[in-house]
């Protein structure tokens, strides 16, 4: 798992596999052929399925969120750096490396989790999905530890 997170990784997958169903949901729901005269059944809950909302990059909300993330980012790295430097040599290799790995990877793990996590969510009844990304990620982490 760390390996996947450390380097960008491709994960070829079969479309029929339940683990990746969620990743191709948009294709199944939004693409594919329609016959003009026919109806698409009104699928209650289908909008809820699309938890992965489209993003508007140029908006005040986005600006404020980026600014806040940036402020936090500096504080975090400011705290981390001295810890690594002041570690005694014997422990530096292990805890230093660990700390660094964790700091650098936690985000990446989450990113992978989002990708694969949606496959996990596919194991649930999708209409119960409520768009809580964290829930997806944590559920997936638990599942991965099995």
């Amino acid at each position: 798992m760390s390996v996947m997170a450390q380097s960008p990784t491709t994960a070829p997958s079969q479309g029929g596999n339940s683990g990746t169903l969620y990743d191709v949901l948009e294709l199944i729901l939004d693409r594919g052929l329609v016959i003009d005269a026919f109806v698409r059944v009104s699928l209650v809950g289908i909008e809820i399925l699309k938890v992965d909302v489209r993003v508007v990059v140029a908006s005040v909300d986005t600006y404020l969120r980026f600014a806040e993330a940036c402020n936090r980012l500096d504080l975090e790295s400011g705290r981390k750096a001295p810890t690594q430097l002041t570690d005694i040599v014997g422990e530096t290799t292990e805890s230093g490396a660990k700390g660094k790995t964790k700091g650098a990877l936690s985000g990446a793990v989450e990113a992978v989790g989002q990708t694969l996590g949606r496959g996990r969510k596919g194991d649930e009844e999708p209409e119960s999905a409520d768009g809580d990304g964290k829930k997806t990620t944590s559920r997936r982490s638990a599942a991965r530890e099995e």
Partner: protein
Amino acid sequence: MSTYVYAITPADHPLRLEGLHGVGEPAGELRVLKTDALGAVVSDAPEDLRAKRRDLMAHQSVLSRLLDEGTALPMRFGLVGPDDGQVLAALDERRDEYGKRLKEIDGCVEYHVKVSRDEADMLREIVAESAEIRELNEVTRERPEAHTERLRLGELISREVRTRQDAVAESVVTHLAPVGLGHRVGSATASHFLNVSFLVKRDEAAAFARAVDEEVERQGAGYVVSLHGPLPPYSFV
């Protein structure tokens, strides 16, 4: 009883559906409707169809099987005709159009590529490269009430994010598109700034996978690329 349609195939498709079932609870039984030129895989449409996992799986599994054994136009999930007769009538009426589309995707599959980047990783890069952003970051940290500077900081970061994402998206499409016969870019989402599908000849699948690997190498650490496929060519019908 209305009729749920899964796919349209050429009349000579083997249409082996053993072990598969349709949408609904209990699962609908799959049937084949045929005209001289075309076939359609259908089942009775359930009254209260919703996008449940088992229904999506049923739909996708039928299409995957049809794809394994020949060419098929995948229908969008949830498409329902009034009855079998109307489905047959539609096949007859659009016979030329469907025939043409089937030819276009003959021997092809869809690959779907998603790209995301860890936000903190990207922000670190942006902060490191811009003195103005570093300065605004200091100012807004020290003076939380500095609203104008905060907006300016966010705007600058936003622009940098967009520039980076656009560059990577363009690179991915530019390098992968030549291996396929067509591509279709979807909307960016909160988790993936690039979602793009490629129509690829079956016998080019290995070359496509290699091209994806090369692109991953090119973009380096920090990006997560996921590749899904082979899929029925949902995006190219």
